[in-house]
Protein backbone atom coordinates (compact mmCIF):
# COMPACT_ATOMS: atom_id res chain seq x y z
CA UNK A 1 0.00 0.00 0.00
CA UNK A 2 1.42 3.38 -0.86
CA UNK A 3 2.01 5.94 1.84
CA UNK A 4 -0.76 8.29 0.88
CA UNK A 5 -3.48 5.69 1.00
CA UNK A 6 -2.10 4.33 4.24
CA UNK A 7 -2.18 7.72 5.90
CA UNK A 8 -5.69 8.39 4.56
CA UNK A 9 -6.80 5.10 6.08
CA UNK A 10 -5.21 5.83 9.45
CA UNK A 11 -6.75 9.30 9.46
CA UNK A 12 -10.18 7.77 8.96
CA UNK A 13 -9.49 5.26 11.70
CA UNK A 14 -8.36 8.01 14.05
CA UNK A 15 -11.44 10.04 13.25
CA UNK A 16 -13.73 7.19 14.24
CA UNK A 17 -11.71 6.66 17.40
CA UNK A 18 -12.10 10.32 18.30
CA UNK A 19 -15.84 10.01 17.98
CA UNK A 20 -15.90 6.90 20.14
CA UNK A 21 -13.50 8.36 22.70
CA UNK A 22 -15.43 11.58 23.01
CA UNK A 23 -18.74 9.84 23.44
CA UNK A 24 -19.95 11.12 26.79
CA UNK A 25 -21.40 7.79 27.94
CA UNK A 26 -18.31 5.74 27.19
CA UNK A 27 -16.11 8.40 28.76
CA UNK A 28 -18.29 8.44 31.85
CA UNK A 29 -18.06 4.69 32.10
CA UNK A 30 -14.30 4.63 31.68
CA UNK A 31 -13.61 7.44 34.17
CA UNK A 32 -15.98 5.92 36.73
CA UNK A 33 -14.11 2.64 36.59
CA UNK A 34 -10.77 4.38 36.94
CA UNK A 35 -12.07 6.18 40.03
CA UNK A 36 -13.31 3.12 41.92
CA UNK A 37 -10.45 0.83 40.88
CA UNK A 38 -8.42 1.33 44.12
CA UNK A 39 -11.29 -0.10 46.12
CA UNK A 40 -11.25 -3.32 44.10
CA UNK A 41 -7.49 -3.57 44.40
CA UNK A 42 -7.94 -3.40 48.15
CA UNK A 43 -10.52 -6.19 47.86
CA UNK A 44 -7.90 -8.27 46.04
CA UNK A 45 -5.50 -7.67 48.89
CA UNK A 46 -8.15 -8.68 51.43
CA UNK A 47 -8.87 -11.93 49.58
CA UNK A 48 -5.14 -12.63 49.38
CA UNK A 49 -4.66 -12.11 53.11
CA UNK A 50 -7.76 -14.09 54.05
CA UNK A 51 -7.26 -17.08 51.80
CA UNK A 52 -3.52 -17.34 51.33
CA UNK A 53 -1.79 -15.70 54.28
CA UNK A 54 -4.11 -16.34 57.24
CA UNK A 55 -4.43 -20.11 56.55
CA UNK A 56 -0.62 -20.32 56.73
CA UNK A 57 -0.48 -18.97 60.27
CA UNK A 58 -3.72 -20.20 61.77
CA UNK A 59 -6.55 -22.71 61.56
CA UNK A 60 -9.95 -23.67 62.94
CA UNK A 61 -11.93 -21.23 65.02
CA UNK A 62 -9.02 -18.79 65.24
CA UNK A 63 -8.74 -18.67 61.45
CA UNK A 64 -12.43 -17.88 61.22
CA UNK A 65 -11.98 -14.97 63.59
CA UNK A 66 -9.02 -13.65 61.62
CA UNK A 67 -10.95 -13.96 58.39
CA UNK A 68 -13.61 -11.57 59.62
CA UNK A 69 -11.07 -8.91 58.65
CA UNK A 70 -11.16 -9.91 54.99
CA UNK A 71 -14.90 -10.48 55.05
CA UNK A 72 -15.76 -7.00 56.23
CA UNK A 73 -13.41 -5.49 53.68
CA UNK A 74 -15.08 -7.55 50.94
CA UNK A 75 -18.45 -6.35 52.15
CA UNK A 76 -17.45 -2.74 51.77
CA UNK A 77 -15.85 -3.20 48.36
CA UNK A 78 -16.85 -6.14 46.14
CA UNK A 79 -20.24 -6.67 47.73
CA UNK A 80 -21.32 -3.12 47.03
CA UNK A 81 -19.68 -2.86 43.60
CA UNK A 82 -23.02 -2.12 41.91
CA UNK A 83 -23.79 0.61 44.40
CA UNK A 84 -20.37 2.20 44.05
CA UNK A 85 -20.47 2.23 40.27
CA UNK A 86 -23.96 3.73 40.16
CA UNK A 87 -23.03 6.75 42.26
CA UNK A 88 -19.71 7.20 40.49
CA UNK A 89 -21.45 7.12 37.10
CA UNK A 90 -23.93 9.74 38.28
CA UNK A 91 -21.17 12.03 39.52
CA UNK A 92 -18.87 11.71 36.51
CA UNK A 93 -21.76 12.00 34.08
CA UNK A 94 -22.81 15.29 35.72
CA UNK A 95 -19.26 16.59 35.58
CA UNK A 96 -18.90 15.60 31.93
CA UNK A 97 -22.24 17.25 31.20
CA UNK A 98 -21.07 20.33 33.11
CA UNK A 99 -24.13 20.02 35.31
CA UNK A 100 -23.78 22.46 38.22
CA UNK A 101 -25.05 20.27 41.03
CA UNK A 102 -23.38 16.86 40.61
CA UNK A 103 -23.94 15.73 44.19
CA UNK A 104 -27.70 15.91 43.72
CA UNK A 105 -27.36 13.53 40.76
CA UNK A 106 -25.54 11.11 43.05
CA UNK A 107 -28.48 11.18 45.46
CA UNK A 108 -30.94 10.49 42.64
CA UNK A 109 -28.89 7.65 41.24
CA UNK A 110 -28.48 5.95 44.60
CA UNK A 111 -32.19 6.23 45.36
CA UNK A 112 -33.10 4.99 41.90
CA UNK A 113 -30.95 1.90 42.25
CA UNK A 114 -32.59 0.94 45.53
CA UNK A 115 -36.05 1.74 44.16
CA UNK A 116 -35.42 -0.69 41.32
CA UNK A 117 -34.68 -3.55 43.67
CA UNK A 118 -37.13 -6.29 44.44
CA UNK A 119 -38.80 -5.60 47.80
CA UNK A 120 -38.69 -9.27 48.73
CA UNK A 121 -35.38 -10.98 49.29
CA UNK A 122 -34.62 -14.64 49.86
CA UNK A 123 -32.37 -15.25 52.84
CA UNK A 124 -31.17 -18.42 54.51
CA UNK A 125 -31.07 -18.02 58.30
CA UNK A 126 -28.03 -19.35 60.19
CA UNK A 127 -28.40 -23.07 60.80
CA UNK A 128 -31.37 -23.44 58.49
CA UNK A 129 -31.32 -25.22 55.15
CA UNK A 130 -34.31 -23.52 53.64
CA UNK A 131 -34.42 -19.98 52.39
CA UNK A 132 -37.05 -17.64 53.73
CA UNK A 133 -38.58 -14.76 51.87
CA UNK A 134 -38.13 -11.47 53.71
CA UNK A 135 -39.93 -8.28 52.77
CA UNK A 136 -38.73 -4.68 53.02
CA UNK A 137 -36.19 -5.18 55.76
CA UNK A 138 -32.98 -6.21 54.04
CA UNK A 139 -30.83 -5.05 51.18
CA UNK A 140 -29.22 -8.00 49.43
CA UNK A 141 -25.55 -7.98 48.50
CA UNK A 142 -26.70 -10.05 45.55
CA UNK A 143 -28.38 -6.98 44.12
CA UNK A 144 -25.89 -4.27 44.98
CA UNK A 145 -22.71 -6.32 44.60
CA UNK A 146 -20.87 -7.74 41.63
CA UNK A 147 -23.97 -9.28 40.08
CA UNK A 148 -25.60 -5.86 40.11
CA UNK A 149 -22.75 -3.99 38.46
CA UNK A 150 -24.42 -3.67 35.11
CA UNK A 151 -27.67 -2.71 36.73
CA UNK A 152 -25.70 -0.09 38.66
CA UNK A 153 -24.21 1.25 35.44
CA UNK A 154 -27.48 1.35 33.50
CA UNK A 155 -29.74 2.61 36.26
CA UNK A 156 -27.09 5.13 37.34
CA UNK A 157 -26.82 6.46 33.81
CA UNK A 158 -30.54 6.45 32.95
CA UNK A 159 -31.64 8.12 36.19
CA UNK A 160 -28.90 10.75 35.88
CA UNK A 161 -29.80 11.50 32.28
CA UNK A 162 -33.46 11.80 33.09
CA UNK A 163 -32.80 13.98 36.11
CA UNK A 164 -30.35 16.32 34.38
CA UNK A 165 -32.78 16.67 31.45
CA UNK A 166 -35.65 17.52 33.79
CA UNK A 167 -33.67 20.17 35.67
CA UNK A 168 -33.12 21.92 32.35
CA UNK A 169 -36.88 22.44 31.94
CA UNK A 170 -37.84 25.97 33.00
CA UNK A 171 -41.29 24.95 34.27
CA UNK A 172 -39.87 22.60 36.82
CA UNK A 173 -37.60 25.12 38.50
CA UNK A 174 -38.85 26.64 41.70
CA UNK A 175 -37.10 29.94 42.23
CA UNK A 176 -36.85 31.12 45.80
CA UNK A 177 -37.22 34.80 46.58
CA UNK A 178 -34.10 36.78 47.38
CA UNK A 179 -32.76 36.42 50.91
CA UNK A 180 -33.18 32.65 50.98
CA UNK A 181 -29.78 31.06 51.66
CA UNK A 182 -28.28 29.74 48.40
CA UNK A 183 -28.03 26.15 49.66
CA UNK A 184 -31.75 26.14 50.43
CA UNK A 185 -32.51 27.67 47.04
CA UNK A 186 -30.39 25.01 45.37
CA UNK A 187 -32.40 22.26 47.02
CA UNK A 188 -35.71 23.78 45.99
CA UNK A 189 -34.65 24.39 42.42
CA UNK A 190 -34.12 20.66 41.90
CA UNK A 191 -37.02 19.52 44.08
CA UNK A 192 -39.55 18.84 41.33
CA UNK A 193 -37.05 17.22 38.96
CA UNK A 194 -35.85 14.92 41.75
CA UNK A 195 -39.34 13.93 42.67
CA UNK A 196 -40.44 13.28 39.11
CA UNK A 197 -37.35 11.18 38.36
CA UNK A 198 -37.81 9.02 41.43
CA UNK A 199 -41.56 8.69 40.91
CA UNK A 200 -40.98 7.45 37.36
CA UNK A 201 -38.46 4.94 38.69
CA UNK A 202 -40.92 3.91 41.39
CA UNK A 203 -43.73 3.33 38.91
CA UNK A 204 -41.52 1.21 36.66
CA UNK A 205 -40.25 -0.79 39.61
CA UNK A 206 -43.70 -1.38 41.11
CA UNK A 207 -45.11 -2.38 37.72
CA UNK A 208 -42.32 -4.87 37.13
CA UNK A 209 -42.68 -6.39 40.57
CA UNK A 210 -46.46 -6.62 40.66
CA UNK A 211 -47.40 -7.29 37.06
CA UNK A 212 -44.33 -9.08 35.79
CA UNK A 213 -43.00 -10.67 38.98
CA UNK A 214 -39.48 -9.56 38.32
CA UNK A 215 -37.25 -6.53 38.89
CA UNK A 216 -35.01 -4.40 36.75
CA UNK A 217 -31.81 -5.56 38.42
CA UNK A 218 -32.63 -9.16 37.52
CA UNK A 219 -33.67 -8.22 33.99
CA UNK A 220 -30.51 -6.24 33.34
CA UNK A 221 -28.22 -8.94 34.66
CA UNK A 222 -29.85 -11.68 32.59
CA UNK A 223 -30.60 -9.71 29.43
CA UNK A 224 -27.58 -7.39 29.29
CA UNK A 225 -24.77 -8.53 31.54
CA UNK A 226 -24.86 -12.21 30.63
CA UNK A 227 -25.06 -11.92 26.80
CA UNK A 228 -22.36 -9.23 26.81
CA UNK A 229 -20.19 -11.43 28.94
CA UNK A 230 -20.70 -14.34 26.55
CA UNK A 231 -19.47 -12.25 23.64
CA UNK A 232 -16.74 -10.16 25.28
CA UNK A 233 -15.07 -12.78 27.39
CA UNK A 234 -15.18 -15.66 24.99
CA UNK A 235 -11.66 -16.04 23.61
CA UNK A 236 -12.49 -14.87 20.04
CA UNK A 237 -14.64 -11.98 21.25
CA UNK A 238 -11.99 -10.84 23.69
CA UNK A 239 -9.17 -11.10 21.16
CA UNK A 240 -11.15 -9.17 18.56
CA UNK A 241 -12.07 -6.24 20.82
CA UNK A 242 -8.71 -6.14 22.58
CA UNK A 243 -6.82 -6.20 19.28
CA UNK A 244 -8.90 -3.32 17.94
CA UNK A 245 -7.66 -1.29 20.90
CA UNK A 246 -4.08 -2.34 20.22
CA UNK A 247 -4.35 -1.43 16.53
CA UNK A 248 -5.49 2.00 17.70
CA UNK A 249 -2.46 2.37 19.91
CA UNK A 250 -0.19 1.42 17.01
CA UNK A 251 -1.73 4.49 15.33
CA UNK A 252 -0.86 6.64 18.33
CA UNK A 253 -4.25 6.69 20.01
CA UNK A 254 -4.49 5.37 23.53
CA UNK A 255 -6.17 1.96 23.45
CA UNK A 256 -8.35 2.62 26.46
CA UNK A 257 -10.72 4.42 24.09
CA UNK A 258 -11.93 0.98 23.05
CA UNK A 259 -10.82 -1.34 25.79
CA UNK A 260 -11.58 0.94 28.69
CA UNK A 261 -15.24 1.14 27.89
CA UNK A 262 -16.02 -2.11 26.09
CA UNK A 263 -13.90 -4.67 27.88
CA UNK A 264 -12.98 -3.35 31.30
CA UNK A 265 -16.46 -3.39 32.85
CA UNK A 266 -17.08 -7.05 31.97
CA UNK A 267 -13.57 -8.11 32.82
CA UNK A 268 -13.96 -6.43 36.18
CA UNK A 269 -17.29 -8.17 36.83
CA UNK A 270 -15.54 -11.47 36.07
CA UNK A 271 -12.61 -10.53 38.26
CA UNK A 272 -14.85 -9.58 41.15
CA UNK A 273 -16.90 -12.76 40.84
CA UNK A 274 -13.70 -14.80 40.93
CA UNK A 275 -12.55 -12.96 44.05
CA UNK A 276 -15.94 -13.46 45.65
CA UNK A 277 -15.97 -17.19 44.84
CA UNK A 278 -12.56 -17.73 46.41
CA UNK A 279 -13.49 -15.62 49.39
CA UNK A 280 -16.51 -17.92 49.85
CA UNK A 281 -14.32 -21.01 49.63
CA UNK A 282 -15.15 -22.04 46.06
CA UNK A 283 -12.98 -22.10 42.94
CA UNK A 284 -12.73 -19.11 40.60
CA UNK A 285 -14.64 -19.74 37.37
CA UNK A 286 -13.87 -17.05 34.79
CA UNK A 287 -10.69 -17.53 32.77
CA UNK A 288 -10.84 -14.12 31.11
CA UNK A 289 -10.77 -11.30 33.65
CA UNK A 290 -8.84 -8.11 34.41
CA UNK A 291 -5.79 -10.02 35.67
CA UNK A 292 -5.82 -12.29 32.65
CA UNK A 293 -5.00 -9.23 30.59
CA UNK A 294 -2.41 -7.84 33.00
CA UNK A 295 -0.65 -11.20 33.34
CA UNK A 296 -0.80 -12.74 29.88
CA UNK A 297 -1.64 -10.17 27.22
CA UNK A 298 -0.14 -6.94 28.46
CA UNK A 299 3.17 -7.57 30.18
CA UNK A 300 5.34 -4.46 30.02
CA UNK A 301 2.30 -2.57 28.78
CA UNK A 302 0.17 -2.71 25.64
CA UNK A 303 1.68 -4.94 22.95
CA UNK A 304 3.62 -7.11 25.41
CA UNK A 305 6.51 -4.72 24.87
CA UNK A 306 8.55 -6.27 27.66
CA UNK A 307 9.37 -8.92 25.03
CA UNK A 308 10.35 -6.28 22.53
CA UNK A 309 12.71 -4.74 25.09
CA UNK A 310 14.25 -8.15 25.72
CA UNK A 311 14.58 -8.78 21.98
CA UNK A 312 16.41 -5.48 21.62
CA UNK A 313 18.74 -6.10 24.56
CA UNK A 314 19.55 -9.66 23.54
CA UNK A 315 19.70 -9.55 19.78
CA UNK A 316 19.96 -5.98 18.57
CA UNK A 317 23.05 -4.07 17.58
CA UNK A 318 21.37 -1.00 16.09
CA UNK A 319 22.37 1.78 18.46
CA UNK A 320 19.33 4.08 18.34
CA UNK A 321 17.09 1.13 19.30
CA UNK A 322 19.29 0.21 22.22
CA UNK A 323 19.15 3.80 23.46
CA UNK A 324 15.35 3.82 23.37
CA UNK A 325 15.21 0.41 25.04
CA UNK A 326 17.41 1.63 27.89
CA UNK A 327 15.14 4.61 28.40
CA UNK A 328 12.03 2.44 28.24
CA UNK A 329 13.12 -0.36 30.54
CA UNK A 330 12.35 1.03 33.97
CA UNK A 331 8.89 2.37 33.11
CA UNK A 332 8.34 -0.79 31.06
CA UNK A 333 8.83 -3.00 34.10
CA UNK A 334 5.93 -1.12 35.66
CA UNK A 335 3.83 -1.61 32.53
CA UNK A 336 4.23 1.93 31.23
CA UNK A 337 5.51 1.79 27.68
CA UNK A 338 4.86 5.12 26.01
CA UNK A 339 8.61 5.79 25.76
CA UNK A 340 9.11 2.65 23.66
CA UNK A 341 5.85 3.06 21.69
CA UNK A 342 6.66 6.63 20.68
CA UNK A 343 10.43 6.43 20.94
CA UNK A 344 11.33 3.42 18.82
CA UNK A 345 8.79 4.24 17.35
CA UNK A 346 6.15 1.55 17.09
CA UNK A 347 3.44 3.98 16.03
CA UNK A 348 3.05 4.28 12.27
CA UNK A 349 5.93 1.84 11.79
CA UNK A 350 4.38 -1.03 9.87
CA UNK A 351 7.01 -3.72 10.61
CA UNK A 352 6.64 -3.05 14.34
CA UNK A 353 2.88 -2.62 14.32
CA UNK A 354 2.40 -6.24 13.28
CA UNK A 355 4.05 -7.93 16.30
CA UNK A 356 2.69 -5.17 18.54
CA UNK A 357 -0.82 -6.31 17.71
CA UNK A 358 -0.14 -10.04 17.37
CA UNK A 359 2.03 -10.66 20.46
CA UNK A 360 -0.79 -9.97 22.92
CA UNK A 361 -2.92 -12.44 20.96
CA UNK A 362 -0.20 -15.08 21.35
CA UNK A 363 0.09 -14.29 25.06
CA UNK A 364 -3.66 -14.40 25.63
CA UNK A 365 -3.98 -17.73 23.78
CA UNK A 366 -1.16 -19.37 25.75
CA UNK A 367 -2.63 -18.08 29.02
CA UNK A 368 -6.12 -19.18 28.03
CA UNK A 369 -5.16 -22.71 27.06
CA UNK A 370 -2.93 -23.17 30.09
CA UNK A 371 -5.99 -22.38 32.20
CA UNK A 372 -8.50 -24.29 30.08
CA UNK A 373 -6.53 -27.55 30.26
CA UNK A 374 -6.23 -27.13 34.02
CA UNK A 375 -2.47 -26.50 34.19
CA UNK A 376 -3.21 -23.32 36.12
CA UNK A 377 -6.36 -22.00 37.80
CA UNK A 378 -8.25 -18.86 36.79
CA UNK A 379 -6.64 -15.80 38.38
CA UNK A 380 -8.57 -14.45 41.32
CA UNK A 381 -6.71 -11.68 43.13
CA UNK A 382 -7.05 -8.28 41.54
CA UNK A 383 -3.66 -6.65 41.11
CA UNK A 384 -3.06 -3.11 39.84
CA UNK A 385 -2.19 -3.09 36.13
CA UNK A 386 1.13 -1.48 37.05
CA UNK A 387 2.32 -4.67 38.79
CA UNK A 388 5.56 -5.85 37.09
CA UNK A 389 5.49 -9.04 34.95
CA UNK A 390 6.05 -12.32 36.85
CA UNK A 391 5.23 -10.62 40.17
CA UNK A 392 1.76 -10.01 38.70
CA UNK A 393 1.29 -13.72 37.96
CA UNK A 394 2.56 -14.73 41.37
CA UNK A 395 0.24 -12.35 43.22
CA UNK A 396 -2.90 -12.72 41.12
CA UNK A 397 -2.86 -16.50 41.49
CA UNK A 398 -2.31 -16.35 45.23
CA UNK A 399 1.31 -17.50 44.85
CA UNK A 400 1.20 -20.18 42.13
CA UNK A 401 4.62 -20.61 40.49
CA UNK A 402 3.05 -22.32 37.51
CA UNK A 403 1.42 -19.04 36.48
CA UNK A 404 4.84 -17.39 36.61
CA UNK A 405 6.14 -20.21 34.43
CA UNK A 406 3.36 -19.58 31.90
CA UNK A 407 4.35 -15.90 31.89
CA UNK A 408 7.99 -16.81 31.26
CA UNK A 409 6.92 -19.04 28.35
CA UNK A 410 4.82 -16.21 26.90
CA UNK A 411 7.71 -13.76 27.20
CA UNK A 412 10.10 -16.25 25.56
CA UNK A 413 7.77 -17.03 22.65
CA UNK A 414 6.86 -13.42 21.95
CA UNK A 415 10.48 -12.27 22.26
CA UNK A 416 11.36 -14.70 19.47
CA UNK A 417 8.33 -13.46 17.55
CA UNK A 418 9.44 -9.83 17.81
CA UNK A 419 12.98 -10.50 16.51
CA UNK A 420 12.36 -10.83 12.73
CA UNK A 421 10.14 -7.74 12.72
CA UNK A 422 12.76 -5.86 14.69
CA UNK A 423 15.35 -6.74 12.02
CA UNK A 424 13.07 -5.50 9.22
CA UNK A 425 12.27 -2.32 11.13
CA UNK A 426 15.97 -1.74 11.69
CA UNK A 427 16.71 -2.12 7.97
CA UNK A 428 13.91 0.31 7.12
CA UNK A 429 15.21 2.80 9.69
CA UNK A 430 18.77 2.63 8.37
CA UNK A 431 17.59 2.95 4.76
CA UNK A 432 15.33 5.91 5.60
CA UNK A 433 18.22 7.57 7.37
CA UNK A 434 20.48 7.08 4.35
CA UNK A 435 17.83 8.49 2.02
CA UNK A 436 17.39 11.48 4.33
CA UNK A 437 21.11 12.17 4.31
CA UNK A 438 21.22 11.85 0.51
CA UNK A 439 18.31 14.20 -0.06
CA UNK A 440 19.73 16.68 2.40
CA UNK A 441 22.98 16.52 0.46
CA UNK A 442 21.11 17.30 -2.75
CA UNK A 443 19.36 20.27 -1.23
CA UNK A 444 22.58 21.99 -0.38
Amino acid sequence: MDNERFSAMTDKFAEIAVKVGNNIYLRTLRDSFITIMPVFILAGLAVLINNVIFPLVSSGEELKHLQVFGNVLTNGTLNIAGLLISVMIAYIYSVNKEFKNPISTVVISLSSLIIMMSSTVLVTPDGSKEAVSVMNSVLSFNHIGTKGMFAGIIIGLVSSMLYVKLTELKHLQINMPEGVPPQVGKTFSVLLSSMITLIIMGVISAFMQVAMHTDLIKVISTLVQEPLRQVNTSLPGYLLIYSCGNILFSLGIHQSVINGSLLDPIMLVNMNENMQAVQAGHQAMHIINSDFQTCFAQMGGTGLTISLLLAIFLFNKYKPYNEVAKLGLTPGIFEINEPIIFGLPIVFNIPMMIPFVLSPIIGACIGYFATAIGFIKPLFIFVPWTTPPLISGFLSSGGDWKVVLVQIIIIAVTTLFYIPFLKISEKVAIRTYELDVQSEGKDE
Partner: protein
Amino acid sequence: MKNILLVCLSGMSTSLLVQKMEKAAEKNDITVRIWAVSEAEAHNNFAEADIVLLGPQLKFKYKEYKKMLGEKPVEVISIADYGRMQGEKVLKWALSILG
Protein backbone atom coordinates in the same frame (compact mmCIF):
# COMPACT_ATOMS: atom_id res chain seq x y z
CA MET B 1 6.32 31.64 37.59
CA LYS B 2 4.92 29.63 34.72
CA ASN B 3 2.61 26.69 35.34
CA ILE B 4 2.79 23.81 32.90
CA LEU B 5 0.20 21.03 33.06
CA LEU B 6 0.77 17.70 31.33
CA VAL B 7 -2.12 15.36 30.65
CA CYS B 8 -2.17 11.73 29.61
CA LEU B 9 -4.67 8.97 30.19
CA SER B 10 -3.70 8.02 33.72
CA GLY B 11 -1.00 10.62 34.31
CA MET B 12 1.72 7.97 34.48
CA SER B 13 3.89 8.32 31.42
CA THR B 14 3.59 12.10 31.47
CA SER B 15 4.86 12.08 35.05
CA LEU B 16 8.08 10.57 33.70
CA LEU B 17 8.45 13.49 31.35
CA VAL B 18 7.65 15.91 34.19
CA GLN B 19 10.67 14.58 36.09
CA LYS B 20 12.93 15.16 33.11
CA MET B 21 11.51 18.63 32.57
CA GLU B 22 12.00 19.55 36.21
CA LYS B 23 15.61 18.44 36.02
CA ALA B 24 16.13 20.55 32.93
CA ALA B 25 14.50 23.54 34.64
CA GLU B 26 16.76 23.16 37.65
CA LYS B 27 19.83 22.90 35.46
CA ASN B 28 18.91 26.09 33.62
CA ASP B 29 17.76 28.00 36.71
CA ILE B 30 14.21 28.35 35.47
CA THR B 31 11.52 28.57 38.13
CA VAL B 32 8.53 26.76 36.82
CA ARG B 33 5.81 24.47 38.14
CA ILE B 34 5.23 21.33 36.09
CA TRP B 35 2.80 18.59 37.01
CA ALA B 36 1.01 15.67 35.39
CA VAL B 37 -2.56 14.50 35.87
CA SER B 38 -4.87 11.90 34.40
CA GLU B 39 -7.40 12.81 31.79
CA ALA B 40 -10.21 12.29 34.28
CA GLU B 41 -8.80 14.88 36.66
CA ALA B 42 -7.57 17.35 34.08
CA HIS B 43 -10.51 19.74 34.26
CA ASN B 44 -9.86 20.37 37.98
CA ASN B 45 -6.37 21.56 37.12
CA PHE B 46 -7.07 23.86 34.20
CA ALA B 47 -7.44 26.98 36.33
CA GLU B 48 -3.92 26.75 37.72
CA ALA B 49 -2.21 26.03 34.42
CA ASP B 50 -0.75 28.59 32.01
CA ILE B 51 -0.37 25.97 29.30
CA VAL B 52 -1.73 22.45 28.88
CA LEU B 53 0.36 19.83 27.08
CA LEU B 54 -1.21 16.57 25.91
CA GLY B 55 0.68 13.30 25.51
CA PRO B 56 0.65 12.20 21.84
CA GLN B 57 -1.63 9.27 22.73
CA LEU B 58 -4.29 11.87 23.54
CA LYS B 59 -3.86 13.77 20.30
CA PHE B 60 -7.45 12.85 19.46
CA LYS B 61 -8.59 14.98 22.38
CA TYR B 62 -6.90 18.11 21.09
CA LYS B 63 -9.96 19.79 19.59
CA GLU B 64 -12.04 19.10 22.66
CA TYR B 65 -9.38 20.59 24.93
CA LYS B 66 -8.98 23.58 22.68
CA LYS B 67 -12.69 24.23 23.04
CA MET B 68 -12.66 23.75 26.81
CA LEU B 69 -9.61 25.95 27.38
CA GLY B 70 -10.53 28.86 25.14
CA GLU B 71 -7.69 31.37 25.11
CA LYS B 72 -5.31 29.24 27.16
CA PRO B 73 -2.69 27.51 24.98
CA VAL B 74 -2.97 23.76 24.56
CA GLU B 75 -0.52 21.69 22.53
CA VAL B 76 0.26 18.07 21.73
CA ILE B 77 3.80 16.96 22.57
CA SER B 78 5.65 15.62 19.53
CA ILE B 79 5.88 11.84 19.23
CA ALA B 80 9.68 11.88 18.96
CA ASP B 81 10.25 14.15 21.96
CA TYR B 82 7.77 12.19 24.03
CA GLY B 83 9.24 8.81 23.16
CA ARG B 84 12.75 9.96 23.90
CA MET B 85 11.58 11.83 27.01
CA GLN B 86 13.35 15.03 25.89
CA GLY B 87 12.60 17.02 29.03
CA GLU B 88 14.73 19.99 28.14
CA LYS B 89 13.38 20.28 24.62
CA VAL B 90 9.75 20.05 25.69
CA LEU B 91 10.31 22.56 28.49
CA LYS B 92 11.92 25.11 26.19
CA TRP B 93 9.24 24.56 23.60
CA ALA B 94 6.48 25.11 26.17
CA LEU B 95 8.15 28.26 27.51
CA SER B 96 8.63 29.61 23.99
CA ILE B 97 4.88 29.29 23.39
CA LEU B 98 4.19 31.17 26.60
CA GLY B 99 6.69 33.81 25.50
